[in-house]
C-alpha cells in the first residue's frame, strides 16, 4: 500500500510539472491572440493555421533545405509576422467598420483557405522535422527536453512583449488604443500603423510558437484544429484581451489536461478542460480576473 502511494505521488508530481511546461506553451499561444483582440478588437479564428504554416516553413527549411535550426527560426518568425500583416491588410481592414461577427467569419474563411492550401501544396502526410531531443530524467520522473525549451522560449518571448509594451513609445500607443479606440485618433495616433504593427507582433508570436511546436508535434494540414480551439478557450477563460487572465488560464488549462491525461486518456483531459471552461462561463462569464460590474 505504501509503495503504491509513493508511485502515485511521483506520477502526480510529474503530471503537475509537465502541466506547468505545457502551460508555458499555451500561454504563448494565448498571448498573440489576446494582443490582436485587445488592440484591434477582432478574433483571428485562423490563428492556429498561421502557426501551421509556420511549422511547415520550419519543416521545409530545416529538414528539406538543410538550413540550421537557429537560422530557420528567425526566418519562420518573420514569415508568419508578414502573413499576419497580410491578413490584416487584405481581410480585416476592409471589414473594420462591419459587424464584429463578419470579421470573425472572414477569418474563418482564411482558416479554410490556409488549411486546404496546405493540403494542396504539402499533402496530408504527417511530417516530422526529425530533431530528436533527449528526455530529461529527474529521479523517477521524465520530462521532454523540447517542452522545457518551449517553456523557456515562451517565457522569454512573453517578457520581451511585456518590455516592448511598457517601455517603448509604440508599446504605450498600443496599450492606449486597447483602452480607447476612438479617443486615440483625436490624440494624433496613427491607428492604421498601430494595427499593422500589432498584427506583425501577433504574427511573430505565432511564428515563435510554430518554431517550438514543430519540435514536439508532427505537422499536418489539420493540426490547427487541435491547437486552435484550446487557444480560444484559454483567451475567453482569461477574458479576451486580458493578458494576465490569459496567462493564469493557460496554466489552469494545462494542469487540467495533464492531470486528466494521467488518470485516463489524453482526450478525457481535453473533455475535462472543455467542461471546466463551460462551467466557468456560468460562474465568471467575463473571464477569470474580470471585475464584477
Amino acid at each position, binding site marked *: 500500500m505504501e509503495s503504491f502511494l509513493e508511485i502515485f505521488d511521483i506520477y502526480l508530481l510529474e503530471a503537475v510539472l509537465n502541466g506547468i511546461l505545457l502551460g508555458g506553451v499555451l500561454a504563448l499561444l494565448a498571448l498573440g491572440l489576446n494582443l490582436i483582440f485587445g488592440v484591434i478588437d477582432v478574433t483571428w479564428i485562423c490563428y492556429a493555421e498561421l502557426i501551421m504554416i509556420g511549422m511547415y516553413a520550419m519543416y521545409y527549411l530545416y529538414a528539406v533545405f538543410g538550413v540550421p535550426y537557429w537560422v530557420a527560426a528567425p526566418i519562420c518568425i518573420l514569415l508568419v509576422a508578414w502573413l499576419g500583416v497580410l491578413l490584416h491588410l487584405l481581410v480585416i481592414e476592409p471589414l473594420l467598420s462591419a459587424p*464584429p461577427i463578419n470579421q470573425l467569419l472572414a477569418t474563418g474563411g*482564411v482558416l479554410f483557405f490556409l488549411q*486546404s492550401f496546405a493540403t494542396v501544396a504539402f499533402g*496530408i502526410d504527417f511530417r516530422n522535422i526529425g530533431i530528436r531531443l533527449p528526455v530529461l530524467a529527474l529521479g523517477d520522473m521524465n520530462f521532454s527536453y523540447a517542452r522545457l525549451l518551449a517553456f523557456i522560449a515562451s517565457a522569454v518571448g512573453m517578457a520581451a512583449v511585456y518590455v516592448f509594451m511598457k517601455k517603448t513609445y509604440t508599446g504605450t500607443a498600443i496599450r492606449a488604443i486597447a483602452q480607447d479606440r476612438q479617443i486615440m485618433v483625436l490624440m494624433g495616433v496613427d491607428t492604421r500603423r498601430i494595427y499593422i504593427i500589432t498584427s506583425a507582433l501577433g504574427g511573430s508570436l505565432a511564428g515563435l510558437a510554430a518554431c517550438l511546436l514543430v519540435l514536439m508535434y508532427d505537422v499536418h494540414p489539420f493540426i490547427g484544429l487541435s491547437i486552435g480551439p484550446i487557444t480560444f478557450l484559454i483567451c*475567453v477563460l482569461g477574458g*479576451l484581451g486580458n493578458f494576465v487572465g490569459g496567462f493564469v488560464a493557460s496554466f489552469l488549462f494545462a494542469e487540467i489536461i495533464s492531470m486528466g491525461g494521467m488518470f485516463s486518456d489524453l482526450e478525457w483531459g*481535453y*473533455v475535462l478542460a*472543455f467542461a471546466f471552461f463551460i462551467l466557468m*462561463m456560468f460562474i465568471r462569464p467575463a473571464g477569470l480576473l474580470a471585475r464584477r460590474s
Partner: protein
Amino acid sequence: MKGGVRQRNTYAAWAVAAVALAAVPFVHSDPYHLHILILILIWSFAYTSWSMMGRFGLTSLGHGGFMGAGAYVTALLWNHLGITPWLGIPIALLCAAVLALIVGYPCFRFRITGHYFVLVTLALSGIVLQVITATRDYTGGSLGYTPEATKGSKLLALQSSDKVVWYLVALVVWALGLAIWTWVDRSMMRSAMEAISEDEDAAAAAGVNVTAEKLKITVLSAMMTAFAGAIYCQYQMFISPDTVSGIAVSLQMVFAAVVGGLYVALGPTVGAVITILMAEILRISFGTKAVGWDNLIYGVLLVLFIIFLPKGILGSFLERVRARR
C-alpha cells in the same frame, strides 16, 4: 382583393413547385444524381437550421456538436440497445435540446454575446468531438461508425436502400425546415429577436424576455440540426466525427448560409446547392487531385462574400429585384 389574388397565386406557385420536386425521381432516376439531390436536401435543412439563429446575430460554431449528437445518439441507441430510430430520433433531439439549454442558458443569462458567444459554442463542438473520439470503444472514434443493417422490418429500422424513398423523405424534411423558418419569420418571435439583436437593453425595457426568447430559438435550431444529423446517419449508414461533428462542420454551415443568404428562406438552400455541386464537379473533373481544392475555393469565396456581398447570393439578388419594382 388584389392581395388575396397575389396570395392565391403564391400558394399555387408553391403547390406546382412541390409537385414538380416530388416528381423528379419518377422522371429521372439516375442513382448518382438522386444521391446528390438527397445530400443537397439534407444539408439544406441543416444550413436552414443554423440560419434560424444566425440571422438574428446568434452566430454559433456549436452546431457541429448538435448534429453529431443527433447522429450518434440515434445510431448508438439502435446498435447497443436495439431502440428503433422512430424512438431514438426523438431521444436524440431531446439530448440536443438539453445540450443547447446547458450552453445557452448561462450565455443568455449573463449576456454573453458576440465573440464570446461564438467561442463558447466553439467549445461545445470541441467537447462533442472529443467525447466521440474518447469513447471509441462504443462510437468507433475517428474511424467512424455504422448503424447495423436491420434483419427485420426496414420501416421499423428507418433504413432503405431505395434512393427514391430517401429522396422523398429528404424533400419532406427540407420542406419542413422551410415551413418552420417561415413560421418563425411571421411570428412574434421574429420581432422580439430582431429587437434583441439591435439592442438588448432596449428590447428588455420594451418588455421582451431576452433570455427566454433567445433560448427558444436556440433550442429549436439545435433540435432541427440534430434531426438533420439523424437523417443523414440513416441515409448514409455511416457517420464519422469529421462528417457530422466538430468545428469543420460548424464552419461549413456558416459558410453555406452566408454565401446563399442569411436573411432569406431559401438562402441556405442556395448555399447548399452551390457548395455541394462545386465539390462534386471538382471531384469528378480532377479526381483525387482535387482533394483540398474545394475548401480552398470556399475559403476565398467566404472572405470575398463577407467583404463584398454580406447578404449572400440570393439575398442580394432578391434585394435588387425588389428595388427595381
